[in-house]
C-alpha cells in the first residue's frame, strides 16, 4: 500500500534548506578540489586530479593521519558502544535511581568540547594534573603516565576522553530503543525458562539492533569528526601521533592555505567514512535478522 503523492510535500521544507545551505556549499568545495585555490585570492587554476595524485603518492602525513584516525575510531566505537549498551540495559527502567544516573552520565555531553578539552588537559598534565597526582599519592607511580605526551599512547588517552564525553549521549539512544520493547516479550521469555543471555540474544538484541545501528554509525562519524577535542588538547602532536584527518584538513586549509588540496583531502575523507558506515550497517543489519 503506497502513500499518496502528497508524501513528497513532506520533504520540501527541509530539503530546500538542506540543498541551499548544505549541499550547495559542499558541491562548491568539491569543485575546488580540482583547483589550486588558496582560500583567499580571487584567482585560481584548474589542476585536474593532481591534488588527488599527490595525496596518494607523496603525502606521508595523510597516510599517518588516516591510520591514527582508524585507531581512534576503533577504540571509541568499541568502548563507547559497549559502555552505553551495558549501562542502558542496567538503567532501562524509569526508577528514580536510573533517571538520576542517566542524567549524571549524560552530564559531560552538556559541556562544550572546548570545555572538555580544557578539563582533560588539566587532568592529564604529567606533573601537576589530577591523575598523576593521585597515582603518586597512592604509590602507583608506574601508572602516572605521560598521557598526551607519549607518542605511543596519546591517541588512546584522547579516545578515552571522547568516550567519557559521549557515552551518556549514546546511552539515551539505547534507552529509547530498549523502552520500545514490549514488557510482555520479557515475560514470555521468562515463562519459557530462558536465561539472561538467551533473553538478551532472542528478545533484546533483535529489537535493540536498530538503535545499535544508529549508535555505531553515529559514533563512527563522530569519531572521524572529533576535531575540537584533539585540536584543543594536542593539535595533532607530539610528532603527528594524534593527527587525524579532520585536524589535517583544517591545517591544510587554514594554516597552509591550500584550500584546493584540503578539499581533495575531504573528498577522500568522505569516501572513507561512507565505506566504513555502509559496511557497518550491512553487518549490523544482517546480524539483526
Amino acid at each position, binding site marked *: 500500500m503506497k502513500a499518496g503523492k*502528497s508524501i513528497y510535500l513532506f520533504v520540501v521544507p527541509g530539503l530546500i534548506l538542506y540543498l541551499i545551505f548544505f549541499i550547495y556549499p559542499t558541491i562548491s568545495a568539491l569543485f575546488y578540489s580540482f583547483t589550486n585555490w588558496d582560500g583567499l585570492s580571487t584567482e585560481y587554476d584548474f589542476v585536474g586530479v593532481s591534488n588527488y595524485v599527490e595525496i596518494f603518492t607523496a603525502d606521508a602525513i595523510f597516510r599517518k593521519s588516516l591510520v591514527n584516525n582508524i585507531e581512534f575510531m576503533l577504540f571509541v566505537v568499541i568502548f563507547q558502544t559497549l559502555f552505553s549498551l551495558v549501562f542502558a540495559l542496567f538503567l532501562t527502567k524509569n526508577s528514580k535511581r536510573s533517571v538520576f544516573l542517566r542524567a549524571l552520565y549524560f552530564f559531560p555531553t552538556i559541556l562544550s568540547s572546548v570545555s572538555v578539552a580544557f578539563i582533560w588537559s588539566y587532568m592529564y598534565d604529567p606533573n*601537576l594534573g589530577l591523575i598523576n597526582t593521585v597515582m603518586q599519592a597512592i604509590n602507583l607511580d608506574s601508572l602516572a603516565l605521560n598521557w598526551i605526551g607519549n*607518542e605511543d599512547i596519546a591517541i588512546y588517552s584522547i579516545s578515552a576522553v571522547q568516550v567519557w564525553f559521549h557515552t551518556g549521549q549514546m546511552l539515551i539512544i539505547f534507552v529509547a530503543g530498549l523502552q520500545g520493547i514490549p514488557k510482555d516479550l520479557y515475560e514470555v521469555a521468562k515463562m519459557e525458562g530462558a536465561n539472561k543471555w538467551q533473553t538478551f540474544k532472542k528478545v533484546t538484541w533483535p529489537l535493540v539492533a536498530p538503535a545499535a545501528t544508529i549508535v555505531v554509525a553515529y559514533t563512527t562519524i563522530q569519531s572521524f569528526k572529533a576535531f575540537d577535542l584533539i585540536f584543543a588538547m594536542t593539535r595533532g*602532536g607530539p610528532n603527528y601521533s594524534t593527527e587525524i584527518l579532520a585536524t589535517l584538513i583544517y591545517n591544510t586549509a587554514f594554516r*597552509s592555505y591550500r584550500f584546493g588540496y584540503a578539499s581533495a583531502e575531504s573528498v577522500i575523507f568522505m569516501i572513507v567514512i561512507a565505506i566504513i558506515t555502509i559496511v557497518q550497517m550491512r553487518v549490523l543489519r544482517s546480524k539483526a535478522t
Partner: protein
Amino acid sequence: MNVKHMMLAVFILMTVVLGACSSESSGESDSADGSKTISFIHWRGEDKEVFDKLIEKFEKENEGIKVDMTIYPSEQYQSTAQTLIRDGEVGDVFTSFPGSQFEIMDKAGLMTDLSGEEFVSNFNESLLEAGQKDGKQWAVPYQLVFNQPVYNKGIFEELGIEIPESWEEFLAMNETLKENGYSPMAFPGADIGPGQLMNSMMMNNATDEDIFTQLENGETKLTDEWWVKTLSQFKELADKGYFQDDSLGTKHDGAIALMAQEKAAMLGSGSYAMASIKEQNPDMELGLLAPITVPADEAVYEGIHTTTFMLAVNKNSDTKDEAKKFIEFLSQPENASTYANETGQHLTVNDVNYESEVLKNTADWMDKDTRFQPRYLINSADIEKAVIASIQSVIGGTSPEDAAAEAQKVVDQFVE
C-alpha cells in the same frame, strides 16, 4: 489541518524569520549622526582591558569616530578572521602575525600600503622589516618579544650561577640546577615549547638568516649538520633530565605553574610569559637568557626577537583614513607607554617609557645582538610543522638522524 495548510504555515514562518533578519542587519559604517565606526580585530584577549581604555581615549580625542573591537583567540583568528577581512566585513584595522600569515595576507592583497604615512616614523626603523614586502610597508609591527628562556634570578643567585656563554657552560649550569633539586627547565613540549626553544637552539648552529628559505628551495636539508646538531642537542637536554619529567605532555600553563612554584629554574618559552609568572608569584625576579649551542668564541647571536602584532589597514575598508588615525594614535609614545606597561610587552615604538620592573629589567635585550625569530621565516606551515615534529620526535626517543630524515620527507613534498 491538511498538508497544504501545514506547508503554508511553514513558509509563513520562514518568511517571518528571513524578514526579521533583513531588518536586523545594518552593517553600515555610517550612522545617522554622521559618525563613523571602524572595526578593529586582533587576537590578544589578555589586552582587552587596556585596549578598552585606549579606545575610550581615542574616541574622546577624535569625535565622530567609534572603534568596535572584536577579539578572537589566536587559533580562530588564523582560521576565520582572514575570510572576514577579505570581505571587508570586519577589520578596518586588523593585525597579522609575521611570517606565513603575513605572506598569505599579502598574496591575497588584503592590506593597504602604509609606506608614506607619517606615523611610520614613530616606530624604530630597524624593527619594521617584518611588515615590509617589495619595498612597501604593508603593516607595522607593534610588539617586540624575546623568544628565549625566562629564568628565575633568585635561584641563579642562590646557587651562584653565571649566565652561560657556551654549550659546555650551559650543560654545566643545568647539571648544577639538577643536583640542587630543581627541574632546570620547564619545557612546554605539548604546545609552544618546541617552536619557541628551537629558535635560540639553532641560531648559532645555522647563522645564515636565509637558512629556511634555502630549505624551502631545496638548497639545504634538515638532514644536514646544522639541524641534526640542533636535534641532538635537544635530545641531550631531554636525556640528561634537564627538562621536567614527561615534558612532551606539559602545556604552557603547566610549565608556567612549575616555574611559579619554583620547581623549575627556567621556562622554555619567551618574554611574554613573564607577566603570567609574576601574576602567580609576584615576588619572583625574572630575567632572560638564551642557550648558546657553540663554543663561546663561535657565538654570533645572543638571543631571539620577534616583532609581531602587526597593525594593518584593510584594503576593502570604507574608512581607511579613520583606520590610519587609530594606528597613528597607538603609535604615540604616551599611548604606547600605557599599552606597554599594562600588558608587560616591549614595543617597536620609539620613546616608550617602560615603568614596570619586568620591562625595565629586560630592556637591555633591545640593544643586544638578537636575531629575528627563524621559525617565522619558514613560509610553509607544513614545513614548520614537520620541523617542530622532529623536535618532539627526538625528545620522545628517536635518534636525531632518523627524526631529521622523517621530517625531510615532508619537506621534499613541498620542494619543487
